[in-house]
């Protein structure tokens, strides 16, 4: 793909020349700044509201998803306009996308942590260091923060 030449002839025109489209207009950059500020206010506002649950998705998760969606949108604006990826070569675009795709994929590891309680592991049962059970957890047991009656407590499993 041919890229726009960065030639001196286009510079003299103060960025209004057709061939200098890779120079962002100051108006656009300012609009993006204002948009980012507005989105920041929206994310603050949204964090103080208990959003309702949507179907099986609890309200707290909706709140978190909204916050992350706004942050991702803000990040996209910064990457696309401020970082000028829209003017970058296809190679650079793919590279940038791949970098963030891998970040996203990494969160698949949550599937491991989320399912460990389904599978008791010999020797990793609940116990205190004193009575022989090893633990990487804080030395208080059971931790006050855990809900009594949760499946893990009833099955005598410790969170990992």
């Amino acid at each position: 793909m041919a890229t726009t030449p960065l030639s001196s002839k286009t510079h003299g025109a103060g960025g209004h020349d057709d061939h200098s489209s890779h120079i962002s207009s100051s108006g656009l950059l300012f609009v993006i700044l204002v948009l980012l500020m507005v989105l920041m206010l929206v994310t603050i506002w949204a964090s103080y509201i208990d959003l309702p649950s949507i179907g099986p998705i609890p309200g707290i998760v909706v709140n978190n998803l909204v916050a992350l969606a706004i942050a991702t949108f803000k990040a996209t604006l910064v990457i696309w306009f401020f970082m000028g990826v829209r003017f970058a070569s296809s190679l650079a675009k793919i590279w940038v996308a791949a970098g963030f795709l891998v970040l996203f994929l990494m969160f698949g590891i949550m599937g491991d942590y989320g399912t460990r309680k389904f599978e008791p592991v010999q020797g990793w049962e609940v116990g205190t260091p004193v009575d022989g059970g090893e633990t990487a957890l804080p030395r208080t047991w059971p931790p006050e923060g855990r809900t009594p009656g949760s499946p893990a407590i009833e099955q005598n499993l410790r969170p990992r």
Partner: protein
Amino acid sequence: MAAIAHDHAHDDHGALHHQFENIEQQNDSYIVGMWTFLVTEVMFFGALFFIYTLYRSMYQMDWYLAHEELDVTLGGVNTVILLISSWTVAMAVRFAQLKNRKMVILNLVVTLGCAFMFLVIKAFEYAAKFEHHLLPGPTFGSVPSHLNGANSNYAQLFYGLYFGMTGLHAVHILVGILVISALTYLWIRKADSVMKDYIPTELVGLYWHFVDLVWIFLFPLMYLMPKPH
């Protein structure tokens, strides 16, 4: 790639190095190279964001209570400061392309000012947390009123990540100050390396936008946890 005439090459960009076909390919290589570094930074911070996600999902209520101690106003002001600095850097790159030296320097100096302001505000925030014994360590949580009823161990996990992630971010700000200062110095000295080639300004700009990018996620995750309901 389009074939470009190079007869005027020396007055609008850096020298074309022999391994490149043309100036576009050379510039693309710089950009892709910088992004390669930034992608490793994404992985670097990404691991911390993963740890954050894991523990927050496990100790949602304790983390919510612990996070209430953070100052949303200061965090918000710092967000505004970083967004403005990101904009001034974008403007500096634009003026570097337009060869408007004075405006480049002005924008870079404003960026530096923003970076310093960010660190000063962060220092005040940290100082308050130290005073309240919220720095992970032997005396963590010795003033229980500042835990807001959160389990001390889980609150300590939260503050470990708070200091770890915002601290690492602050280190990036410091490095940014150094790099932007060096760039500003080169512009003030009218160095050919920046005057004839916008790429150095562009690459420093990419770095600074990345620092802003990390904060865009840190701010809502650390300061704006919704109440579990």
